[in-house]
């Protein structure tokens, strides 16, 4: 068995178990958590390098051959996502050390964080559609507990909406998997890709693909299924919001891209056009939602929705360049969005509020933080030469290439509105003088621990922007693998 494929599951699971065992010793928990996160990142990086050199990797769990047992498979797309998960895990684990309150730490924050990471990694790695469902459940239950952990009133209200709507997604997903098994008689995704071409009723497969679209659409918070996200992301501690913002919806997007490149390509004119329309609506409704908000984290939450539109725009366009744009966009977005949430935690800590009205004066008091905010914020708005510009440019070029002018116009217009709402935060939190009553507190305990991951992520955003080619080349290679699934299918099924 291919150990390197299993490590991204074992490392977070082991970390979670060890942190539970170390429950009495808070310092041990904290160290284990940070070390585990670092190990996960290392494992993911090793896997990415391996996949880059040796091609798609497969592991047959329990040595049961495909399609009978459960197969883990890592192509470039999976490996890139794993690295991003590891990176965000580490950033948030370090940030948590400085920002998490002891009560939540005592009640299992760190084990939950690592189980969440395990679920995310499992979803990226699995080559089995039912196993994907299991990892979704792991993610859902751990994220639900993380949202609710602390039991504050706002948290519980958000958590109820979060869990109810996500359970809808699970139910639809399960029904869809069951039906798919009924049609194709198999669960291995590579095998499904083969079998679905031979189904007597291709229209039925298209119908099932719509169920997957809705189920994953809820997970990735597209229009009109995104309600759970803005309802819950501003309620838990910032570290939790940040890891959610970076990873959870992106698992949904990953799943969408995976099934709509590997499994459901029977009726592209219908399904992918539908995805493109939803992409446009998601961009617009999300950004308008952000414009209407008046608190830092709520603005950011709605922007997640809006940006998901860009990611699935590439899927809807369905050309190599467009998919490369999607992959690039996801990578850029995860880094930038997590970072913005982390920054909102710093301003909340120093300014004592998340509401724009009550914040202010940060540029005068902390010019360095201002720069650290501007990098991801402007990148999110697609200002060159930051990472978001290249992501957007790739999608726009792909859109113009295929003559899809409407979606390009929407994408450009929405990026202006994104800039508008980022400057709103900038104007209110950084430029505006601090409100009279809220003098900035002098206590800056643990601030360095919060700033460190922010600075690293900002530097990463800047580097991707200035040197975009390596990531673009990687994304292009990943997109080519996605659009030519023969190699994936051959690798998974060929080892029989």
């Amino acid at each position: 068995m291919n150990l390197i494929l299993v490590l991204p599951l074992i490392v977070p699971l082991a970390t979670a178990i060890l942190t539970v065992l170390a429950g009495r010793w808070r310092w041990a928990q904290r160290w284990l958590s940070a070390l585990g996160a670092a190990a996960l990142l290392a494992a993911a990086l090793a896997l990415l390098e391996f996949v880059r050199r040796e091609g798609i990797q497969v592991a047959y769990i329990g040595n049961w051959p495909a399609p009978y047992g459960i197969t883990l498979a890592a192509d470039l797309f999976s490996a890139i996502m794993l690295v991003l998960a590891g990176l965000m895990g580490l950033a948030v684990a370090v940030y948590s050390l400085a920002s998490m309150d002891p009560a939540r730490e005592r009640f299992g924050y760190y084990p939950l964080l690592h189980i969440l990471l395990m679920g995310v990694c499992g979803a990226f790695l699995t080559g089995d559609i039912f196993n994907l469902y299991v990892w979704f459940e792991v993610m859902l239950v751990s994220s639900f507990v993380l949202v609710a952990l602390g039991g504050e009133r706002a948290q519980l209200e958000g958590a109820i909406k979060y869990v109810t709507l996500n359970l809808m997604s699970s139910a639809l997903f399960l029904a869809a998997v069951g039906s798919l098994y009924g049609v194709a008689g198999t669960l291995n995704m590579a095998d499904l890709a083969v079998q679905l071409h031979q189904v007597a009723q291709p229209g039925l497969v298209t119908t099932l693909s719509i169920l997957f679209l809705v189920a994953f659409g809820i997970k990735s918070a597209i229009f009109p299924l995104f309600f759970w996200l803005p309802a819950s992301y501003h309620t838990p501690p910032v570290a939790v919001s940040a890891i959610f913002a970076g990873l959870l919806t992106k698992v949904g997007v990953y799943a969408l891209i995976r099934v709509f490149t590997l499994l459901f390509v029977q009726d592209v004119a219908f399904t992918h056009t539908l995805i493109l329309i939803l992409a446009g609506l998601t961009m617009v409704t999300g950004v308008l939602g952000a414009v209407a908000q008046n608190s830092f984290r709520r603005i950011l939450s709605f922007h997640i929705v809006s940006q998901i539109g860009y990611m699935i725009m590439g899927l809807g366009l369905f050309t190599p360049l467009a998919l490369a744009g999607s992959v690039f966009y996801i990578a850029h977005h995860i880094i930038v969005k997590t970072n913005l949430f982390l920054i909102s935690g710093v301003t909340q800590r120093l300014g004592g509020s998340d509401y724009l009205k009550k914040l202010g004066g940060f540029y005068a008091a902390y010019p360095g933080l201002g720069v650290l905010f501007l990098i991801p914020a402007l990148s999110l708005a697609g200002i060159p030469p930051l990472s978001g510009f290249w992501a957007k440019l790739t999608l726009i070029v792909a859109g113009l290439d295929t003559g899809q002018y409407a979606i390009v116009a929407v994408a450009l217009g929405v990026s202006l509105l994104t800039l508008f709402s980022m400057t709103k935060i900038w104007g209110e939190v950084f430029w505006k003088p601090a409100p009279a009553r809220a003098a900035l507190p002098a206590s800056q305990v643990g601030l360095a621990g919060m700033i460190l991951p922010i600075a690293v992520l900002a530097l990463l955003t800047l580097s991707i922007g200035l040197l975009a080619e390596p990531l673009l080349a990687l994304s292009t290679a990943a997109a080519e693998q996605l659009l030519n699934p023969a190699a994936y299918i051959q690798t998974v099924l060929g080892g029989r």
Partner: protein
Amino acid sequence: MDIVIAVLSGFLLAVIAPWVHRVGRRSAGWLLALLPAGLTFYFAAYLRELRPDFVVITSYPWVPGLGVSLSFYLDGLSLLFALLISGIGTLVVIYAGGYLAGKPQLGRFYALVLMFMASMLGLVLAGNAITLFVFWELTSLTSYLLIGLDHEREKARAAALQALLVTGGGGLALLAGLVLMGQVTGSLELAALLSNGAAIREHALYLPILLLILLGAFTKSAQVPFHFWLPNAMEAPTPVSAYLHSATMVKAGVYLLARLSPVLGDTEAWHYLVTGAGMATMLLAALLALGQTDLKRILAYSTVSTLGALTLLLGLDTTLSAKAAMLFLLVHALYKGALFLVAGAVDHEAGTRDIRRLGGLARAMPITAAAAGLAALSMAGLPPMLGFINKELLYEAKLQAPRAAGLITATGVAANMLLVAVAGLVGIRPFWSRSNAPDARPHVPGTSEVPGTSEAVHKEPHEAPLAMWLGPAALAGLGLINGLFPDALPSALVSAAASAVRGKPTVVELALWHGISPIFALSVLTVIVGAAIYVGRDPLYRAAQRFVPWLITGLRVVGHWGPEGGYDLALRGLNSLATTQTRLLQSGYLRFYLIIVMLTTVGLGGYTLLSRTGLTWPAGRSSDVRLYEILIGLLILAATLLALLSTSRLTVVAALGVVGYGVALIFTLFGAPDLAMTQFAIETLTVFLFVLVLYRLPRFAYYSSRRDRIRDAVVALAAGALMTALVLVVTSAPLQSRLTPYFVANAVPLARGRNIDNVILVDFRGLDTLGEITVLAVAGIGVYALLKLRLDEKNK
């Protein structure tokens, strides 16, 4: 030295500029100015090789995957701009050291202005369309941060945002236009675009491309109706206004038009759009300029007018107009830069910029006054300044316009007359007018209150320090020297620049004296009428009020309800649209969220099912249904109905239990006894747990109205119908599992287990089970934490 270093060095210095400021204190401005000064010399060195066909191209790969290279294209046009940018940049950095001395923002100013300079250099030197766009956006961004330098004032923040949104919006259009051009020609390199002009002009996408690019150029260069952001940008400190919003950045649009005129020009659409926009801007802004009382706003409107004139010239698209435009660019940068810096010096030393309160400063500030006077002469187009030569060339170009020469010339002369008066207002009046009695003219539209004008001139004016008079004096002096010796530097530069604009070698020979001609007569007329307007502006205003009140009202309306009103309206509209939409969608009620999710599923799924599969009632399948199966089915349905209708919780729980048992019975009948066993156990346990919890709950009550419940029932039934239909279609063909035969064959020999289900759970699909165990463990942690940890209560 390579061009790439010349461009990027500004960014590097910008990063350390705040430290230089901290260490260098008062001499930081002089120190930092060494870089732009060096760059000026670097670019000046190219003057020696200046021939009409001069081009230097350097290229480095940047993002080859998208056809983007870090390439630079240096020809006469970019050299003219580069010299202006680095030269004026030098003076501005020095000037700011004096102007902003002691202000906390000075360190940031240095960083931003150097970053701007580098971006602007990149813009005019870029040899790749996307690279050009990258620098284009960077100039918008640095402009945003510089307008908002004094960020604690709300007006500065609003003006900064306005400038960013207007130029940023245009920038996005520009990006689309550039990418489309690249797709037509197959390359984004400037050299390739320039050599493929015919292909682009004949392409079906030509008009969209032209419109998109013009949108970018017009917003950046403040053409009507996008002009309003520029006067508002005067919220920026004066060195910024002088540098960005007069001499360089606002000319980026003009640069783009000049750069792309060999590609996009010489068509009807180009002529009408570009000339039309330029003419309207030129005249309207000149009129508005005269109505202002703030020195900087007067200058801003006159800058807009000039930008209009430049656009107009490029729209004419003749060799003569290209020459005139290039010379005008140089002349304007020299005199307007000087006048802005003078305005800053006056504000700094006299404490106000309100021309109604300024007067007689010449004695106190002799050097500044001299510089202002020279610059004003050049602006008014009087000999021996370079401006005089320029005006002759302008009129010549307009008279020889291919279309509507009469109208164009008349508008040009009118606008120039107004600008002569403006030159008097800003360059002469503050220094030489005897009285500083309040002006008779009332406040005119489009103006804003000038900060600090409520009190009288509160300072005893005195000459500005060296750092602050050096810039205006140097710029005004250059206007004089170049006017006296036009065949030296200006002729060569303008020839090379005009060649680039025309795309073919063009020679310009400038001379101060052309002899008496109709053009000279026009020049003289312009100055005489302009001077008359300056002297008689108050009676003239009153007369205008009496005889052409519509003009005054019209200007007032344009000022209040014109494009800027449109901008405000759009912003308000956006906010209310956003609020309404969000209130509708993100209502806060879980039930609405669920309904929308359900209806989306039913709508999309149902539509696809109906349109993609011939949904027919499966024939011949009712025959093999047995009676007891029907009975179990009815039992489940009845129990479901009871659960829905009953008002007793205990009944509901029991009914749900019946549903679960019914399902388990079906499992038993269809050959899955172990599954049924599990189901029985779970159902029993669930009912027990429910009953235990029930005693803790409040009394049962209906909270939703009858209508709500009917609505919910419809949604639920629709969802149920979809799933039923789907299951019927799926099961219409017999299941042929690819997995079961393998599991059956290998459970005993390979997995050593006789219960296949168990083997599947713990071996074949053991990873699933690991995941599910994890889910249970996490749920355990969750329940414990939810019960025990209530931070709300603890904090109380």
